[in-house]
């Protein structure tokens, strides 16, 4: 069984961590032993904490010369056997896009934490935004898939970072923890359980590391120094890793598989939560920090007798198309408050067979629950 129960690194109990500290501990709990990064607000606390913690745990911490070097060095370490991570914010995430494409195409498990701030560009570096979700899917050229998770609390910065590592290893894919400044810097009670479930990389000597009979399969992954004489390349390659830069069949097969191995396993990957959706005539769809404003608002409105429900997306990519389709049809109206200009609302429009009403806010501040209350009232 590739999943395994292991002792928690931290003594079980309650802690008062910031989201960034929680993500660091989640990574370590999941087995992360290589981190490379570059300072950037509001994610730097992750780097600062993991520098100390990896030393204690005999892992490797590297502060690199930039974000490009950071993600590349993580990929190098992962192929040398590490579970690896980097963390950054928007500008660094933009610089990492070529490396992310390499990770996706070489099926390198890795975790990238993006603590989002108010963009675009250097925008407002110490203020909150949630504007990198479409970039997470489309930031590198060509067609590939990733997994992106959206934590709403400090607890989830811990839990979903563990999930991120497990999904990365299980599907051999880059996984993004799309935190927001308002979660990264939030301090909350966070509970550590005595056991952590981790996924151990599947290995199988002598089997091709880049190909499967199944068109959506995930091949086992050997690593450097095991005598496998691996060929890893970001160019089109056959099952063994040999470059095939003008064979149409090899290219189609590889591109299909790296997309389908994620898309065809949507059901297993996607996590959502729903509240009061059964009789709702207006469905609020939300994620990240905003979902806390949204749940507060929905609770209030329900208290007033409003038939409003909430669907919270913990997984943003692959996109939860099916639940949107079903719940949208049931409610007849979807309201999407976002700290960006409708990035997830646009995605919902692809799948929902009903009115989709986006609310944009790009002012560097979180969305106040009272704003949502007022807007949903006016929709009814």
């Amino acid at each position: 069984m590739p999943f395994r129960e292991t002792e928690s690194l931290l003594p079980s109990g309650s802690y008062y961590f910031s989201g960034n500290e929680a993500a660091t501990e989640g990574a370590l709990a999941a087995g992360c032993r290589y981190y490379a990064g570059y300072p950037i607000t509001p994610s730097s606390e992750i780097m600062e904490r993991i520098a100390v913690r990896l030393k204690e745990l005999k892992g490797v911490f590297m502060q690199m010369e930039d974000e490009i070097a950071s993600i590349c060095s993580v990929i190098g370490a992962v192929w040398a056997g590490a579970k690896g991570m980097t963390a950054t914010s928007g500008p660094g995430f933009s610089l990492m896009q070529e490396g992310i494409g390499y990770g996706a195409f070489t099926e390198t498990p890795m975790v990238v934490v993006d603590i989002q701030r108010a963009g675009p560009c250097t925008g407002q570096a110490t203020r909150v935004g949630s504007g990198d979700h479409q970039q997470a899917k489309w930031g590198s050229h060509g067609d590939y898939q990733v997994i992106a998770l959206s934590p709403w609390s400090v607890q989830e910065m811990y839990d979903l970072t563990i999930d991120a590592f497990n999904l990365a290893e299980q599907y051999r894919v880059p996984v993004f923890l799309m935190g927001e400044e308002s979660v990264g810097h939030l301090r909350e009670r966070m509970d550590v359980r005595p056991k952590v479930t981790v996924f151990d990389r599947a290995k199988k000597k002598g089997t091709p590391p880049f190909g499967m009979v199944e068109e959506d399969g995930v091949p086992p992954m050997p690593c450097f120094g095991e005598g496998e004489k691996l060929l890893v390349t970001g160019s089109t390659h056959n099952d063994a890793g040999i470059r095939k830069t003008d064979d149409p069949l090899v290219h189609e097969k590889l591109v299909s598989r790296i997309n389908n191995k994620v898309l065809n396993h949507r059901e297993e990957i996607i996590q959502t939560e729903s509240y009061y959706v059964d009789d709702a005539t207006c469905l609020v769809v939300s994620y990240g920090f905003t979902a806390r404003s949204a749940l507060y608002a929905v609770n209030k409105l329900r208290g007033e007798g409003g038939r409003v429900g909430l669907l919270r997306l913990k997984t943003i990519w692959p996109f939860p198309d099916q639940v949107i389709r079903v719940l949208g049809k049931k409610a007849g109206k979807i309201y999407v408050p976002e700290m960006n200009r409708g990035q997830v609302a646009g995605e919902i429009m692809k799948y929902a067979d009903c009115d989709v009403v986006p609310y944009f806010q790009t002012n560097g501040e979180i969305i106040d629950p009272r704003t949502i209350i007022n807007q949903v009232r006016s929709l009814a």
Partner: protein
Amino acid sequence: MGALKQVRLSGFGGQGVVLAGTILGHGAVKDGKWVAGSSSYGAQARGGSARADVVVSDRPIVFPHVIEANVLAAMAQTAYDKYTEQLARGATVIYDDELVRPRSIDGAIQIGVPATSTAIKLLNQQQSANIVILGAIAVITGIVSKGALSSAIEENVSERFKDLNIRALELGYKLGEADKQ
């Protein structure tokens, strides 16, 4: 939401309200509460105004920011003026009586605490006023236990300032108890 308290600590940069907020929050976690804390971050932190919000509850917290403070501590006049606009009904306002001149607020309980002057006089260290006022808040509101606060100080303050802060906490407790009487 009777069991949920929204606490706001405010002052200006350098007074240590963010650290006080962290200690308060951490203390409440030690008491077994659900806690969420946030603070002003960025340019304001150096100079300007500073703010630390802590929400404490017996149950998991939905919205982690302060919407209307049940408890406000103000260590600067600007902070007092600004944040007394956003108080919950029946809020408790605790202010540093050397730095803040209170106005009358309908339905609020206001208590002046000589945190800064006590810190200067008895600790010879103006910087510990944050912990003095925290001690007073703890007594007055009962939001967190003294043991938990002490333990939180141990874990959040560097070795060389621990004793000083524990003493500041004691002084705050005394001031708070005096105020309660």
